């Protein structure tokens, strides 16, 4: 089995996990942008 998937045990899950990570990063970047829309504060 491992030969067929380049040593990956769970290639499907790996693809899902990468989709998850990309979503996560994009959402996070969205918030980093929205934060700059508010008034300055410290």
């Amino acid at each position, binding site marked *: 089995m491992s030969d067929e998937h380049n040593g990956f*045990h769970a290639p*499907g899950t790996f693809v899902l996990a990468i989709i998850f990570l990309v979503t996560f990063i994009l959402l*996070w970047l969205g918030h980093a942008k*929205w*934060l700059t829309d508010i008034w300055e504060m410290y």
Partner: protein
Amino acid sequence: MSFEKRTCEISGLEIEKNSESMIKLNMATAIIFFAIGGAAGLLVLLTRWPAIHLLPVEWYYRWLTAHGLLALLVWIIFFEVALVHFGSVTLLKSRLAVPILSKITYGLMLGGTLLVVVMVLGGQADVLFTSYVPLQAHPLYYLGIILFAVGSLIAFIHFFINAVVAKKEGEYKRTLPMVSFGIMAASIIGIMSIAHGAAIYIPTFLWSLGIIETIDPSAYRLVWWGLGHTSQQINVCMMVACWYGIAAFLFKAKPASEKLCRSAFVLYILFINVASEHHLLVDPVFSTWHKIVNTSYVMHLAVLASMIHAFAVPASIEMGLRKQGYNNGLFEWLKKAPWGNPAFSATFISIVLFGFLGGTTGVIFGTEQFSIIRHNTWAITGHFHGTVVAGTTIAFMGMAYFLIPVFFKRDLIMPGVAKLQPFVYGTGITILSITMMAAGTFGVPRRHWDYNFSDAPFGYQFDSTVDIFMGLVGIGGLIAVVGGAMFVFVTLGSIFKGNKRA
């Protein structure tokens, strides 16, 4: 040791008699309170839906208090007490070490719950479930919470007594099975969290009796969240243990690396406690470094643990299904998975929704600066309906579908309804959670009776897109209520009326 037990023909589990009755009792009680908590959720939902605005103001806050307590505390923790018994007795093929302790747990938790509900709906505790001082409730309200907490503390301690007895009697040799290991991690976190609970509810109880003069509001928030957040990690741990359990029962799935998964549970135990301070990121008093180190550095290691589990569980399911021959391409295993089995579909839905809805937003809203633009808005409510509802609650639903035939020896009634239920509930909660977050992005506050501010000295109108989100929250919530009711009918119906097995 010999004790009374039977072998379950569905699962092959050996079921000991004393623990069996406690698991049944706690599970059934949990589901009944899930039903009441859900009804409270419906009333709150219909009040926040501007087109309906159902309840008068004081009843909105009362039912909101009741919904938070019944759903978050009572449903979840009764179910967890059942899981504690399952993980420390059934899975270890052992016996319930001290049966009377389980009965005391049940009595205290039920008594506490009833006291709390009477106080809240009797209008003696209009404080919401966080009861931030100097808001004050009737002393019996705090007493009810304390009774409930002591009961669950005894259950978590009982885990360790059972596990030690099982080891002494030779039921396992070196380490616990993974699922029990997860439930053990949850029990450790449970004990830590109730220690915070004692540190805050006992003084507050004395304060409500007039014995203590004041409670510092800022210190209250710090310690209260030591309970409030840490206890959410009990839920995450228990949820992950259920994921591993269902994957193992249905697919004989084995985590690719026991090493990594067990280490991830240890990360939870080590780092979750301080993470509770992400509730205080825009509070005065705490310094910047204190906030960053406590909530974030350490919380992110706990998040890392969740990312490990979120990969390991579906990976083990994938490997199990590939072994069964669904080995073509990337996703044949996923297409051919047993979607008609609600134990599986609920588990998979829980994994996906917990990650995408609850997990991502939890880390983002828990980032020190991002808290400025999300704190106390409806986005937070949307976030935790992604964790504790879409994640934990749906995982427990899957576990209930699996455990009811095993422990009650009855078939599930209405299998067609059961088959659809996780999808209906999951869809409803997804819409509810996303649209709550969208409304919160525009500043709609949580815990707020009048989104039109009609009695305020200065009126305010939200951006008109918010009206659409408010309506969608209502629609998503109604779908979720239908899904919740389907769950209650199927499970309670099966418990009382399902076909008896031999």
